[in-house]
């Protein structure tokens, strides 16, 4: 399926429409990897020279997840604008992860396994290269897609994830509830949407 979402064009501060879709193909993963990686590496080199932090998970390869494309318990989403993939997300629809927070402990949810936006949408990376970032709100639109997927699956918007430390403020801001760091996941903090907070996120950030 395909939907239209609105991203923020950083240069003009105006919203632009983009395509969100869930029929992600191997070609999409390859395209993302081949266009994102050189920019990310180039930026990382610049950051390294400047003595600024770079993520250790820089070497993530979306192509390694090609095998999950056809699985019934996984779902991929992509956002495309101006012919380029602006963000990718993988959801886990299996029963491995359940709600952890009251009052919905043990209930089924949609687990956000991975979300990444194109490096040219990240000011930190682009500034290192001497450019402004291009689009904002890619991560937000993907998270909202996860909520919609949960609603469509009659899970009432319940979504859970393990946040990277730099993203924790973002999840708090959009209304997710949190628990203590998960020692089984390198101490990443667990966040989840309740039906109410999920609905609020969709309505507030239209």
């Amino acid at each position, binding site marked *: 399926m395909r939907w239209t979402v609105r991203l923020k064009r950083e240069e003009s501060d105006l919203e632009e429409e983009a395509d969100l879709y869930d029929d992600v193909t191997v070609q999409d993963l390859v395209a993302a990897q081949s266009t994102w990686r050189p920019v990310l590496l180039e930026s990382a080199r610049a950051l*390294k020279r400047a003595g600024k932090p*770079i993520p250790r998970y820089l070497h993530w390869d979306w192509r390694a997840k090609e095998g999950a494309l056809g699985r019934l318990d996984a779902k991929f989403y992509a956002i495309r604008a101006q012919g380029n993939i602006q963000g990718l997300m993988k959801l886990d629809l299996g029963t491995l992860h359940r709600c952890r927070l009251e009052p919905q402990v043990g209930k089924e949810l949609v*687990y956000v396994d991975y979300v990444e936006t194109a490096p040219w949408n990240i000011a930190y990376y*682009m500034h290192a290269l001497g*450019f402004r970032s*291009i689009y904002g709100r890619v991560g937000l639109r993907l998270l909202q897609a996860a909520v919609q997927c949960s609603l469509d699956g009659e899970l009432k918007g319940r979504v859970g994830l393990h*946040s990277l430390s730099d993203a924790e403020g973002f999840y708090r801001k959009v209304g997710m509830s949190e628990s203590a760091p998960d020692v089984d996941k390198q101490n990443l903090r667990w966040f989840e949407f309740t039906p109410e907070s999920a609905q609020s996120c969709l309505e507030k950030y239209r």
Partner: protein
Amino acid sequence: MTEDSRRHMWAEVDALEQEARGMFVGGMLVDSGIDVGMDSGATSTDIEDEHKMRSAITRAFLTAMGATPTGEVRAASIEAMRQEIARVMHANARVAMITARNLDSLPEDVVESIYDELAELEQLV
């Protein structure tokens, strides 16, 4: 909601999304055995080893996509160029031979020319 409060609401969430630096969750990373920490010392050598695309090509690609330069990268003065060149020389023996001569004694137009050449050789930008 007033226009001001709406703008403030978006500014807050936009800023926090930027703080996430493009990667938002770590579940699959951890399951794949990847360390989700930040390299605060920026000491990874893999970055250099894996680099295959020239800087100029990357910049051309970004420009073609509509990315606008911030103008923050190019050194602002001849002295800043000298310092930047010296830093690159120190870090890269391969190109150090280019300026075996004393940088301070080089005319300004030569400094600028060397700077641009190094930039083109992806040593600076």
